[in-house]
């Protein structure tokens, strides 16, 4: 863990809203998302599919296309608001690794060709020098026989190797911030672990900042320094990783944690949250989680919760923690009402 909170953040997303228009409706894919990333740290973004994680990644890279549009908010990278200046200058300084390694590489060009393309744009390397560097990069991501592999086509690589090649290509851009959008989800378990180790090593060697996006709480606990939990296009809780896992505040985070096998002692039962992430097609009137929330109470349906700062750099967007609203202590749940937010909620570490 590197020290966070010191100085200006490298990337600062503020109040970001992205809307997708279809014939019939406007879908608020992101609704007021804010978070920061500092030099050299790993920030996790976690949530179910459909919660807006990938849209966040694409927004940061400037890859939101029709019918989507960034409606409001800013994405400041090293002080420049990319939504105003455009992404062209930041390309390469921010690189991305997508979920599906077989889709990230153009199948009709060799891996080396695609790495050299990035080297030419960002490091002005061409010819033999580019080739040597491409081989070095492939070696650095752990591809054996890199000189022999550099002229191979992506389809001649296995899934894990392809993801390594994708990472090599991303590194060829000489990035300061690496956005990893579910980089291990498509891979099988042993390869997942290898890729996670690789990313960890690279981050330390190259002093990268990493935005790590996943739906997998288990993975996030291994890699992230700080975590943002997303639900239906909003960040509902943010906390340092340790704190999030020991003292989750938002009922949704608790649900997520409870659904990881083996996190709690009596973990023979896999608790999943009922229902699905709603499609946010209109501006919220209440809490978007209300329909699935086990702690929902009267105010939840008509008051949109704002972030409430809690102890230890943690905050949650839940009315349970909002002093202005009071709810009855739900009987038999073990979770306190809003009156005693700090004591019980902090100590029992999630659902039983």
């Amino acid at each position: 863990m590197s020290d966070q909170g010191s100085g200006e953040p490298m990337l600062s997303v503020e109040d970001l809203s992205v809307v997708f228009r279809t014939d019939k409706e406007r879908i608020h894919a992101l609704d007021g998302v804010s978070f920061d990333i500092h030099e050299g740290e790993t920030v996790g973004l976690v949530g179910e599919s459909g919660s807006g994680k990938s849209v966040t990644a694409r927004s940061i890279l400037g890859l939101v296309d029709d019918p989507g549009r960034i409606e409001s908010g800013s994405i400041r990278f090293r002080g420049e608001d990319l939504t105003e200046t455009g992404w062209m200058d930041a390309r390469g300084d921010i690189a991305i690794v997508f979920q599906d390694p077989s889709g990230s590489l153009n199948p009709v060009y060799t891996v080396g060709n695609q790495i050299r393309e990035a080297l030419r744009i960002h490091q002005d390397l061409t010819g033999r020098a580019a080739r040597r560097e491409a081989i070095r990069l492939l070696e650095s991501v752990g591809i054996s026989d890199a000189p022999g592999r550099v002229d191979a086509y992506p389809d001649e690589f296995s899934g894990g190797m392809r993801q390594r090649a994708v990472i090599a290509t991303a590194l060829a851009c000489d990035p300061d911030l690496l956005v990893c959008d579910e980089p291990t989800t498509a891979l099988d378990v042993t390869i997942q672990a290898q890729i996670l180790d690789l990313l960890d090593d690279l981050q330390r060697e190259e002093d990268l900042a990493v935005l790590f996006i996943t739906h997998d709480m288990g993975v996030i606990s291994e890699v992230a320094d700080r975590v943002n939990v997303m639900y239906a296009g909003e960040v509902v809780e943010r906390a340092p990783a340790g704190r999030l896992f020991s003292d989750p505040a938002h009922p949704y985070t608790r649900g997520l944690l409870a659904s990881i096998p083996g996190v709690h002692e009596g973990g023979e039962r896999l608790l999943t949250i009922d229902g699905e992430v709603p499609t946010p097609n209109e501006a919220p009137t209440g809490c978007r989680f209300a329909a699935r929330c086990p702690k929902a109470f009267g105010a939840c349906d008509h008051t949109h919760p704002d972030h409430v700062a809690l102890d230890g750099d943690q905050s949650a967007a839940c009315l349970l923690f909002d002093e202005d609203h009071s709810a009855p202590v739900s009987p038999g749940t073990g979770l306190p009402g809003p009156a005693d937010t700090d004591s019980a909620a902090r100590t029992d570490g999630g659902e039983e």
Partner: protein
Amino acid sequence: MKRLRYLGKRFLLAVPVVWLGTSFTWFAVFMGPIDPAAALVSDADPTASDKYQSIRTKLGLDQPPLQQYIDFMTDMAVFDLGRTWVVYSGTNVNTLVLDFLPQTLWLGFWSVLIAVFVGVPLGFYAGTRSNTLADYLTSFSGISWRAMPNFWLAAVVLSLLINSEALFGIEWELLGVRTGAITGNPGLGYMADNPLNLFLQPGNTLAAVKKVAPAALVLGSASMGNEIRIGRTAVMEVKNEQYIDFARAKGVSGGRLVWKHVFRNALVPLVPIITTEAFLLVGGSVLVESVFGISGMGSLFLRAAIEGDIPVLGTLMYVFILMLVGINLFQDVLYTLIDPRIGLEGDA
């Protein structure tokens, strides 16, 4: 090398196709309801004449069917195509094919070229601007090209050219190089001694191109429509591929992104339609060559059909089957060049 093995396999697969197609042709011609010998004799009672008997003997119709079949197939295999009976009576079909094939190849070549170099860019253009007015217009024009009957289009284009002076103020015949007449054969004779004359004598080449250009346009029209449609879809699909986003994230932009990453990949689905087009070309050549008065394989086939020279019909069919299978193999070669994935995962 894997790709060579793949090509070899495709080649082997072509053999039974040629064999079955030729056998079918033999059956239709020699075992069909029409006595090919009788059809060649124009007498009132053909079977009574001496000529009929002599033709029967020459065609080997007195032999048992199996023997006939074997003879026919071996003749075809060694490219002994026999002689004609009615069309250019008594000519060796091999010579006839050599005489007529160049015009057809020349026409086919230019029609493919026109179709590809007009259709693909238009399709790509429509795909890059999907759902704009320009896209709708281009797509609709593609659909119309596909729906217009070749023979009708040929007739219309021809009369437009004949009346070009009244309609456009410029006489087509005088435009650029002079060709002598609007219809008729392209003058390819200048290449007979030295094929390099194609480049050495640009005047002759231009004249020969101009001569077939209208016919080539008509012949390629349906393929052009196909290419517009498929090119458009291909570009729209490739645009949504993740590697395009990845390349953009890498900082590739503008023309380089479009040309290197989008278009190259969008070419892949365009390759298989070459075969489809070959069928349209071969079928269409019959009609277009007749309308434009080009003595090519198509018009030869049609004459043989109309004049009842059924044995020649059969041998010409064999030549056409070979041409189509050849084009099919050419497509496979092209495929392996454009898409490195071919041959890597078994049969693609």
